[in-house]
């Protein structure tokens, strides 16, 4: 069995095969976890009320559909030698963006640093780093870039802090 796919959404079959294998592992793990779950027999509950019933069925469904995806990708040539992988600039930028967001959400916020300071540092730093190419293209020097990033950071920090604390009346992290 295979399922139709729209051409514009197609990825190399090998990528689909890797994704399928991950789903098979996840589905299998869920089904196994559900099977081994406490069935609460000591409470004399109806066997159809067992807490593992639905997760088990869902895990099995994911396992089966992962298998179908794997079979389809193999039929489409997933086992043929792969082409040259491209190292993208987007991937590197994404890694840095991800690191910056994690730094803000997991380290800077909620661990003693004042919220306004953490937000200022994050926004100014983010714009300073990731907007640098565009700014340089506009002919702005490093000092001008840093000043602009700081202004954006200060404005965001001040507005978010004031609006959340005094308008929406919520506690900041």
């Amino acid at each position, binding site marked *: 069995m295979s399922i139709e796919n729209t051409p514009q959404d197609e990825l190399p079959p090998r990528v689909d095969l890797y994704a399928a294998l991950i789903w098979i592992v996840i589905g299998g793990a869920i089904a196994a976890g559900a099977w081994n779950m406490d069935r609460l027999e000591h409470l004399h509950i*109806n066997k159809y009320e067992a807490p593992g019933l639905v997760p088990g069925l869902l895990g099995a469904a994911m396992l089966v559909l992962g298998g179908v995806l794997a079979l389809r990708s193999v039929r489409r040539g997933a086992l043929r030698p792969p082409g040259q992988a491209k190292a993208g600039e987007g991937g590197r930028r994404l890694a840095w963006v991800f690191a910056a967001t994690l730094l803000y959400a997991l380290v800077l916020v909620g661990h003693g640093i004042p919220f306004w300071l953490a937000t200022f540092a994050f926004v100014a730093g983010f714009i300073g780093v*990731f907007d640098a190419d565009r700014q340089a293209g506009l002919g702005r020097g490093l000092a001008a870039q840093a000043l602009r990033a700081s202004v954006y950071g200060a404005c965001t920090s001040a507005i978010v802090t004031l609006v959340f604390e005094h308008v929406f009346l919520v506690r900041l992290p």
Partner: protein
Amino acid sequence: MFSGLVSFWQSLASFLTFESIVYVLASSLVGVVIGALPGLTATMGVALMTTLTIKMPSNQALLVLICTYVGAIYGGSRSAILLNIPGTPASAASCLDGYALARQGLAGRAMGIATTGSVLGTLIGMFFLAWFTPLLGEVALKFGAYEFFWLAVFGVIVSATLTGGDPLKGWIAGFAGLFIATIGQDGIHALERFSFGSRDLAGGFSLVPALVGAFGFAEILVAMHEKRPPVTINPFDTVIPKLKDVWQYRRTIVRSGVIGTFIGIVPGVGEDVAAWSSYAAAKRASKNPEEFGKGSIDGLMAAETGDNACVPGAIIPVLTLQIPGSAPAAVLMAAMLIHGVKPGPMIMIESPQFVYDVVAMMLLATLGILLYGLTLTRFLIQVLRVPTTIITPMLFVLCTVGTFALASRLFDIWTMLLFGVIGFVLRHYRFPVAPLVLGIVLGDLMEKSLRRGLVLSDGDLMPFVTRPISAVLFATIVVVILLRLPAVQRLLRIGGTRG
């Protein structure tokens, strides 16, 4: 009939305060801006605004969310027409003719048509919202565990099948969403499942942080991953809509409004399918189908009417069945639950006035987009020129603060980050996120309904397929799945050729 009108006027009158009007103006503007910015979707806007309005009275908060939702679906047309980039997926169909008109120097006319279509589409959907909700509410009273089980499965399967892309991947994402909803204490015996000893996980993942992550943080990552070129905007003429257009395209407007509303009612499908379906129907009915894609006013009117009519349509099943018709409606439903409003089959019995409150909110949102459609063009063009690198850190701050504001828990921020990464990875590997989200929303209903149904029938599966409504839902699910199988499609093609 008249009691409904009286209730509607009472609801509308309750919102005619200075405070409510300020909320309408502000949230419609936020919605239009979010919708206009490529990469930011209506779902993200509604999810973010849910976190911001958590301390507001329920009706005011829902007013803000509905204005944001309607505004965002409308706002997407701006970037579709001016940049050929759909501001939201719902506006993808508008790119075809909207941008073609812009290249002919008719961007202003195209924006006027988009405003006309969106306003009238919302009004048509609003009419059906007021008319259909009580009727569907009566039908919903006949639903039991078996029917709710199939309705939840139907939502996930149909969402995965119709929201574009690969249905197999959509089904996997949908089942993953249903599984995620089971994490934490089970709803019947409170046994901890898949929580690995974590006290935070024992409570399960909160819906709103998961949605903010899947549609907010994930979109930030996507926007930063795909570097967009600087925008170039065509010159434009007047944006004032013409009454002549309304009369000339009245059939398209009514047809698209009805199609959009009914697609909205189908669980989990949403505005983009509504726009494309309305567009296709207009093309079939047109005397000049060859003009579609080359600057057809008819095509643009159909797409814009259809997607905005879908918004009230998607709210109908939220109110009557507690099943969202689209991804933003799923967030709206979560917000209703957070604010203590309990949608579902009992709504016309327990709080019928609330249904008319929602209709009044929809009318105010329509006035909001009409106002901004006529006045905000130059401001929106300036907004479209703001680079992604400046907007994204600000949005991430809002995602973080907003999720924390819900319950002052750092765990909610971690949830947002986790679902952001999941959403990004799924999108990257072409797994649709909408079925995942719908699965998370419907998981609890699906599980409880299945277990209750099995207990009631003592394990007999027959009531799941023999009760009339269950049988219809089951048969529809089977047909939807079968129609996506290549063998069946080949058979249909052969049959079609011979016919």
